[in-house]
């Protein structure tokens, strides 16, 4: 990563992070929608295998930040680096092929397809068959179909919904839809998973299940960036927490440090 690694420290250990251990680095990113400054010179970095939690009240700029990383919004100011790649001006599909995927806040499952087909779409980067080989049903296209069906089923099993494979996602509960969205994102095989408010609208047992899944993914080596406003849920899961307020990073540290940070308490968590 072509960045100044000397200033990068692990939020948990406070030790310097070697450049090859860094997965994502966000440098002085600012964003405006018209006259409204949504993000103001936000910087942070995420070492491989970490769970970074970004919290902040509604309108703090959290979702905007994720969309800048995934490429759904174009960078106006600052730089974002992923592995050796500078992400500015790279379209979202290419960012995905570099190893970043996102679970959108409203999931956006494809309602014209079954659950398993949704997840098979997530395997897109693992297919090679184009229009001609698919239309002619050449052996390569058939092999692709078999392979991605198997992969999609394994991701669906991971989230415990294999029984719902052939149903329509519209018939699922909100929590189940989020899990299908997660399985679809995992099917891409990305190294960095961006989760935009994954807990919103979930019941208590669904939150527990999602937490277990996220920790399991981390144990498998995945790096996860979660944006959320439900702070209680996240304090136990993140290695590293960043607090945004009105587009500004007001704190960064371990969950314990954040909970003791006076500025955070004043701005967001409250004294209660």
């Amino acid at each position, binding site marked *: 990563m072509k960045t100044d690694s000397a200033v990068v420290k692990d939020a948990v250990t406070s030790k310097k992070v070697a450049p090859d251990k860094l997965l994502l680095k966000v440098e002085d990113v600012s964003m405006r929608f018209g006259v409204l400054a949504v993000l103001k010179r936000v910087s942070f970095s995420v070492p491989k295998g970490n769970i970074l939690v970004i919290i902040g009240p509604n309108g703090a700029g959290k979702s905007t930040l994720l969309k800048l990383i995934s490429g759904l919004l174009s960078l106006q100011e600052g730089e974002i680096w992923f592995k050796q790649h500078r992400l500015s001006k790279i379209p979202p599909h290419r960012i995905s092929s570099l190893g970043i*995927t996102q679970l959108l806040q409203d999931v956006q499952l494809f309602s014209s*397809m079954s659950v398993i087909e949704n997840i098979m779409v997530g395997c897109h980067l693992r297919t090679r068959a184009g229009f001609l080989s698919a*239309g002619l049903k050449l052996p390569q296209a058939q092999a692709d179909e078999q392979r991605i069906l198997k992969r999609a089923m394994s991701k669906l099993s991971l989230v415990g919904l294999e029984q719902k494979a052939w149903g329509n996602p519209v018939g699922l509960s909100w929590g189940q839809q989020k899990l299908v969205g997660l399985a679809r994102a995992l099917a891409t095989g990305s190294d960095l998973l961006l989760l935009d408010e994954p807990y919103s609208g979930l019941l208590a047992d669904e939150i527990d299940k999602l937490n277990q899944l996220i920790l399991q993914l981390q144990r498998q080596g995945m790096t996860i960036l979660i944006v959320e406003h439900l702070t209680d849920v996240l304090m136990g899961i993140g290695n590293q927490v960043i607090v945004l307020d009105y587009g500004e990073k007001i704190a960064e540290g371990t969950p314990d440090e954040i909970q003791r940070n006076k500025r955070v308490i004043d701005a967001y968590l409250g004294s209660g």
Partner: protein
Amino acid sequence: MNAFREISSKISAVKLQNRVIALFALVMMTIPLGIGPYPISAMVDVGLYSIVTIGIILLMGFAGQISIGHAAFFGIGAYTSAILTTHYQFSPWLALFLGAALSGGIAAAIGRAMFRLHGLMLAGITLALNLVFYHLVCSMIGLTGGAMGLINIPPLILGGLNFSRSFLTYYMVWIIAIVILGFSLNLANSQVGRTLRSMNTHAGGSEDAAQVLGINVNSYKVQILVLSAVYASIAGSIYAHHARVVEPGTFFIPFSVMVVIMAVLGGLRSPWGAFLGAGLMIGVREFLWEVMPVFVTGVTGAYELIAYGVILILALLFLPRGLISLFGRAFTKRRATV
């Protein structure tokens, strides 16, 4: 156990689909044996319109892109064939392939230029393309014959079979239509089909969701536009060699609107819908051409357009998913296939 049951059900669905195609082919191949020359000629029209409409279904129903200018691609095929064979003595088959390549190239060029823009841009651009094509053909008199068109276009000939006769043209058109149907069904049921549906914002898709999964949405939009343009061009070339004459009025906006109505009427969810939409519309056209002069003396003009409009309104009100929705899963069920 459930997974095994589902997979075997999927295999059955694929087998069922293949059997339905085979049965359909058998029926279509026997039809000419029992009908006269005039109905055969109408059935040639159904086949040609179906080829164009399958492309529209893939473009609109799967990728969610609206075109009201496919008459231009149909016309590019027809005029490429007509010009190359009458002015330059090209082989009709070579002219057909060159027409398809030219249509595909033009579709790729306009697709790449405009898919950076969003919304109904394709509808507007294809409409403009149709207008430009029409006026170009009318004005380039030396090459196209202008408003009078071109005549004496040679027929397609294959292995001694001269396809100027409707009977033989019928078989050629329907064999090509069924091959294109099979190709399109394979496409629809593949990862390409799912990818197209994932970005169709008019039918439960999301471009954002597709893009974060690594899908190059613009590239797929261009590719499906090219494929639909190639289908239209092939149909246009066959039309030119069958009719032996081309004139600009055939390739104007009413044709473009007609194939969209056929697609909507037949059903945008499956390539099968093309045959239902084209069959019904051509049937209505033939019926009106036969019946109207009996009841209304001296009737002229494209009065069948009124009936098409009424049919479209009725279809949108009572069969929003098209005639195909009346049929079973063999036609409409899309599943992962192994």
